[in-house]
């Protein structure tokens, strides 16, 4: 397949790469390529054998066309709103200095790992017609009707997506903005160019790669978003993901489901490509020898800009904290009284009809899946990261693309693929916990690669050579040198992986069998049954587990290896 370029030392490494690659591709063939191919082949089948009728109807039937167009529309609106909110935040992060800035910057990671079903629950509790926001405003101003009626509409979906994705824009663009070389702007200033013309003509073009890259990322995320649309879209609004779910889970119409997956992959792949292209260019633009000058936010004089910033901060505080605080308040509220009844029930209840099992068993199932999926995705992700960074093999680019392919396939599609691919031979894992663990690992390992890759790239390969010239085999060099130096990266990746697995609902809901439940599935089940108190208690458990995982990064690995 690929020929060795000659590099890589002797005996072990080159042959080792081929063996590792072979094992990796064998594994992925079983749990990803074959199941996906099986499902995609169903798009080309009709009642009487091979046919294009499913694909044809998906791209011509008004129902499907509307579904596809709505998916694109909501993703576009969500991207625009996320950009609007995120760019203002990026500007503040880049140009102002204030206490708590680092905290805010690290908080921007949270939406990325906050399970979508939790966000959906928070939105219902906070923005719902009888949610905390409406109730507060009604009692404050004596209104007869709730002033905000935004749930179960396009607005609700777009707002929830912005909650999720604006912090991504803020993070990516903010970092790029702070890294800009200020002397270019100063040169323009010395030539007498005005403030707005400098921004449009000089700053904006240099931010463009970051803006484009984060927009493409947000577009793909919102295009493939499932739990938010499922819960906040109501009966009228559905996206491709929801459409696939309905076809596969409710109507058992696999052929049209598969055809929709095909369309979805084509659209999301083109945006993923755009993202990867622009991300690659970013490294070149953001190189400044000096830091951007920053102003203190909490210092005199107070100008119009600072007043606007305060207003923005207030709105964002309500927007981001409102839903999360609502969940916590609601979890302490049941049957018209305050207290820990919801949590007590969570611990004591032997069987919940909404879960099909006990709440504790649900938590246990999630922890088991989370730990094993983390382990599996770390192993696969680390192997791939090593391959991508260390191996010098012709055709590496193509191999890398094939290895990272799950990034381009939606969670629901992967769930569907594994539902079909794992039920039959060779693995026969239909309905088992293992199938769910596999789905999570396949979904998560590309993120592990993305965390580990830059760290590994910064790790000088001469350290390995030094260890080997001192008598260590390649394996020992890995264990003695690379592994300890990767420790922090591995911890970060592990916590990310665990958080993502704990919150995963899209693939799980397709694969799970009755009598088995995970925390997000339970939240969704309780939410659908309008058991908000119990749903909130479950969601708080999920948030707590994720938060503990994140705090433990600092405790375990944050200290020593900062060099």
């Amino acid at each position, binding site marked *: 397949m690929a020929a060795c*370029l*000659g*590099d890589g*030392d*002797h*005996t*072990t490494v080159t042959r080792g790469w081929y063996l590792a690659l072979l094992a990796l591709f064998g594994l992925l063939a079983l749990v990803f390529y074959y199941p996906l191919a099986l499902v995609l082949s169903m798009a080309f089948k009709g009642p009487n054998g091979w046919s294009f009728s499913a694909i044809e109807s998906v791209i011509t039937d008004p129902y499907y066309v509307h579904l596809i167009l709505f998916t694109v529309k909501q993703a576009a609106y969500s991207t625009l709103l996320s950009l609007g909110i995120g760019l203002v935040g990026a500007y503040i992060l880049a140009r102002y200095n204030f206490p708590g800035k680092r905290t805010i910057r690290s908080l921007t990671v949270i939406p990325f790992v906050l399970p979508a079903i939790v966000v959906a629950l928070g939105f219902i509790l906070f923005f719902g017609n009888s949610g905390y926001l409406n109730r507060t405003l009604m009692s404050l101003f004596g209104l007869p009707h709730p002033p905000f009626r935004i749930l179960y509409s396009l607005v609700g979906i777009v707002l929830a997506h912005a909650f999720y994705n604006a912090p991504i824009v803020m993070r990516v663009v903010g970092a790029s903005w702070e890294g800009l070389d200020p002397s270019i702007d100063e040169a323009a200033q010395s030539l007498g160019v005005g403030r707005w013309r400098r921004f449009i003509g000089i700053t904006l073009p240099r931010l463009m790669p970051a803006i484009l890259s984060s927009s493409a990322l947000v577009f793909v995320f919102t295009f493939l978003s499932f739990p938010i649309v499922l819960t906040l879209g109501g009966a009228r609004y559905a996206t491709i993901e929801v459409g696939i779910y309905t076809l596969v889970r409710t109507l058992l119409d696999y052929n049209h489901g598969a055809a929709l997956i095909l369309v979805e992959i084509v659209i999301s792949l083109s945006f993923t490509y755009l993202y990867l292209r622009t991300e690659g260019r970013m490294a070149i633009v953001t190189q400044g020898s000096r830091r951007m000058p920053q102003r203190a936010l909490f210092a005199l004089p107070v100008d119009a800009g600072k007043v606007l910033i305060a207003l923005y901060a207030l709105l964002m505080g309500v927007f981001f904290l409102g839903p999360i605080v609502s969940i916590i308040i609601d979890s302490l509220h049941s049957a018209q009284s305050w207290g820990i009844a919801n949590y007590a029930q969570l611990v004591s209840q032997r069987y919940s009809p909404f879960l099909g099992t006990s709440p504790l068993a649900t938590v246990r199932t999630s922890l088991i899946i989370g730990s094993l999926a983390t382990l599996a995705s770390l192993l696969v992700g680390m192997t791939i990261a090593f391959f991508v960074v260390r191996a010098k093999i012709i055709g590496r680019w193509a191999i890398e693309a094939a290895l990272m392919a799950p990034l381009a396939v939606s969670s629901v599609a992967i769930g569907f693929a594994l539902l079909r691919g794992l039920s039959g031979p060779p693995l026969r894992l239909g309905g088992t916990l293992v199938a769910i663990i596999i789905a999570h690992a396949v979904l998560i390992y590309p993120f592990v690669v993305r965390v580990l890759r830059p760290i590994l790239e910064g790790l*000088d390969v*001469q*350290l390995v*050579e*030094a*260890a*080997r*010239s*001192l*008598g*260590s*085999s*390649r394996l020992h060099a890995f264990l*003695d*040198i690379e592994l*300890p*130096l990767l420790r922090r990266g591995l911890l970060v990746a592990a916590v990310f992986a665990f958080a993502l697995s704990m919150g995963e609902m899209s693939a799980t809901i397709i694969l799970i069998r009755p009598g088995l439940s995970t925390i997000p599935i339970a939240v969704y089940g309780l939410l659908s049954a309008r058991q908000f108190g119990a749903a909130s208690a479950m969601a708080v458990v999920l948030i707590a587990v994720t938060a503990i995982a994140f705090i433990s990064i600092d405790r375990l690995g944050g200290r020593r*290896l900062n*060099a």
Partner: protein
Amino acid sequence: MPELAVSDLHKSFGDVHAVNGLDLTLAEGEILALLGPSGCGKTTTLRLIAGFDRPDQGTIVLHGRDLLPLPPEKRKIGFVFQNYALFPHMTVAQNIAYGIRYAPRHTERVRELIVLVDLSGLERRYPRELSSGQCQRVALARALAPQPRLLLLDEPLSALDAKLRESLRREIRRIQQEVKLATLHVTHDQDEAMAISDRMAVMHAGRIEQIGTPSEIYSHPESAFVASFIGHANVIAGTITSVSEERLEMDASGTMLRAAASGRDFHPGEDVLLFCKEEKLRLADDGQKTVSARVIIAEYHGETVIVHLESRIGPLRLRMPAGMASNMSAGMQVSVCLPPEECDVFPQKTLS
């Protein structure tokens, strides 16, 4: 029997022949400097010997043992990297101990080495807490710890400032003499190569152009490349006019120049290059064969002055003791003599 024997070594990366038929031997306890411009293949040669890369062709024998089938960890070769490659998560002592950590009495050996490289008191520091000179000493001690049969130094001093470079190269020489270790020292700095080595090999385009003691190479370059690379030579193009037993005569833009015959065959009409080191040029009395020249600028370098001249045979540089150059000023007319016995002549086409 030589300690290290490398013969007919070849290595290409794609279309680039990094090492192209290299032969080299190293005696026991000898330090050989591998000198050449960047990209001449000297680092690749070291990496091939260490086993980090695999040669396309050739043999490498160390102490009678064929190295090629062996992975780097089995070769008993110490390697010191240009950027030190110290393990950042280990202390000085742990770095030095890494290659011998399973050996009995390794703590004593580490203590010995720390004294040898003069790092006492820094055992528990991490590499990020050391200066670059100290890092290089750790790297050296670490490479010496397992008592290798051969030490490879890959531009070990190039990241240091000039003063430190000089003191550390004396140190490397001292340590190498103390442990009597065959050493191959790659550098692009000829001062360093001459100061540190028993013999030096000048590399060019993937092979060795000349190998010999520093003074042999300095005074008797055997190729146009070595003549131009070592020292600072004036290069004058011309055509051979006559060849005799003991001298060559050539015509350079109408001026007749002489050089001592070097045993190389030339024929009249052949295009050649004449090399004459700038400190060998002399200001002449009228009686001798001279070239008249005009002073452009006299550059002050402390001990010496380099006088830049313009002449019929092209620009010339002449280095003289500072005390004798006090009257040199721009525009002054002088006569310059190129002593035939100090001039080397090579065919023009050999310098590519």
